């Protein structure tokens, strides 16, 4: 029911035709093998071969409180961002689905436009807004609401604000597709049957949109796990995420074995989360 409006709908006619429809996929498949599978395998090999064959890189990773803390940070940030994104994205997706077409198109354009703006520019804009001498702190201080600048940057708050903003479209778009496919008559029916607004929301709306929420949340969570630029600029070193640690290992310490181990830990965790999602929401619905 939910797949019809989604651009990525997996059950395309070509796919159902089986073998005959397979050939057009090969170039893309070859590309994926070339630019993704092979490098990942190479990384896996490095993680068990450098500097000497064995599992010492994994032992180092799991034996270090620092790396485990960074792993914990990564989950904390991804989880926080996902929750905030769901809470903020749901009303927007709802509005997009029910608003008169002019307003809905305008809001849609704003959501999409933010995706087209350079990521670094957007992150720097947040730095300017959030820092101690930034617009927000200065305004609040001039209004006399605070006497000391609020710590909005170089910590978890900064990362959450910056990443939520970047992730919102990835929540809003699948959720919007799901909500739009719900027949509005269902809510009239609920109300005719005596459901309060709250009941209509919790017992009709939420179950019907659960797959959309799950799809958006999965995408946001997984993308957040591997995020790099925004946490590096808006977070402090104490909130370091795994991607930044990997970059340090690759670029600064040139310890590619350990970097490979860290990258694989991240990949395995991400795949595991995806599998859990598939199990509970199924393949088609997981995407929309």
């Amino acid at each position, binding site marked *: 029911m939910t797949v019809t409006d989604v651009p990525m709908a997996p059950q395309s006619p070509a796919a159902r035709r089986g073998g005959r429809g397979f*050939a057009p996929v090969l170039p893309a498949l070859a590309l994926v093998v070339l630019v993704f599978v092979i490098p990942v395998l190479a990384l896996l090999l490095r993680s068990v071969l450098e500097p000497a064959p064995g599992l010492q890189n994994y032992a180092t990773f799991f034996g270090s409180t620092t790396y485990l*803390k960074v792993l914990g940070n990564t989950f904390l940030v991804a989880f926080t961002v996902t929750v905030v994104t769901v809470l903020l994205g749901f009303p927007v997706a709802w509005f997009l689905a029910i608003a008169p077409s002019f307003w809905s198109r305008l809001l849609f354009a704003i959501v999409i436009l933010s995706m087209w703006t350079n990521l670094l520019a957007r992150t720097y804009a947040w730095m300017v807004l959030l820092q101690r001498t930034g617009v927000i702190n200065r305004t609040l201080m001039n209004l006399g609401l605070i006497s000391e600048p609020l710590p909005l940057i*170089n910590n978890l708050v900064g990362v959450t604000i910056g990443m939520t903003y970047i992730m919102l479209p990835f929540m809003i778009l699948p959720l919007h597709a799901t909500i739009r496919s719900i027949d509005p008559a269902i809510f009239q029916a609920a109300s005719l049957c005596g459901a309060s607004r709250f009941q209509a929301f919790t017992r009709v709306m939420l179950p019907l949109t659960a797959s959309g929420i799950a799809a958006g949340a999965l995408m946001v969570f997984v993308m957040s796990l591997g995020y790099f630029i925004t946490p590096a600029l808006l977070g402090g*070193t104490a909130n370091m995420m795994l991607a930044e640690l990997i970059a340090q290992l690759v670029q600064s310490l040139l310890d590619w074995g350990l970097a490979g181990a860290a990258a694989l830990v991240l990949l395995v965790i991400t795949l595991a989360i995806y599998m859990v999602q598939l199990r509970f929401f199924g393949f088609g619905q997981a995407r929309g």
Partner: protein
Amino acid sequence: MSRTSRALGIAALALAAGLAGAAVAQSGSIVFTSWGGTTQDAQKKSWAVPFTKETGITVKQDGPTDYGKLKAMVESGNVSWDVVDVEADFAAAAAKDGLIEPIDFSIVKRDEIDPRFVTDHAVGSFYYSFVLGFNPASLKGKTPKSWADVFDTKTFPGKRTFYKWSAPGVLEIALLADGVPADKLYPLDLDRAFKKLDSIKKDIVWWGTGAQSQQLLASGEAPIGQFWNGRIFALQQSGEKVDLSWEQNLTAADMLVVPKGSKNKEAAMKFIAEATSPEGQASFATESGYAPVNVKSAALMPKDVAANLPDKHTASQINLDMSYWAAHRDEIGKRWYAWQAE
């Protein structure tokens, strides 16, 4: 299947054509990689433009320098960078790991280069000082002088900023601030340095790029800290009211290196010769506020510019010990990043 193999054939052809195109483009040109921003602009203007005029070899600019990328190129044998501007501790470590070519001193004139900034595998690009920079307006008229003042959060409240990456500089600053005499710095007492840094850790904002350091200082976000002298110079040139103290300024050089397996080794050496020539160094120093590594350059520079260079502030100058760093780079790096993430 035949359709598939044809598609693959076309893809292979396209790839081959692309490679051939790249090979043609490489003749008579080299790729120079540096750190971007005002520094690389000055390098382009002072070195690349005159070099192309003299030799006809075009110089493509790339960047920013990325040690991981350099290592990947050398390992894969597909080296697309010919001359790279790197930090001195990396140059020393890379020479040890066999990642860079020895310098051809029949082309580069070794005797003209300040001996502090030349090795068998690398020639100085420019030399800089880490200086104490501050924003007077944000410090309410108080003037910090020594590194100890950066650790004095009572007299100089607010955030302080330091270089984020594990590199020579911050640990030395912490030890100097803690009272270690300059001639007793090495070998570094790491426990003592980290303990000193712990005392202000919550007030530290790290800068990862020169541009970021400038933004932090000019905005007053971090009104005091450790900066590259050229970045303060550039801020002052653009009219920002920032100042610096040269007391115990810490010198280090950027180095020019040629990645092992460069396809244009000879042209690369010629480019390094041009860059480190008296004229090339004088011109770059005038543009950037960093000091020349060529001992003959100072005479060629305008007097007022030469007065602002690190080589005019040698009285309390300390040279960061690159051979110590090359030997301990990995071990310190691991501890540094673990400490930061704590």
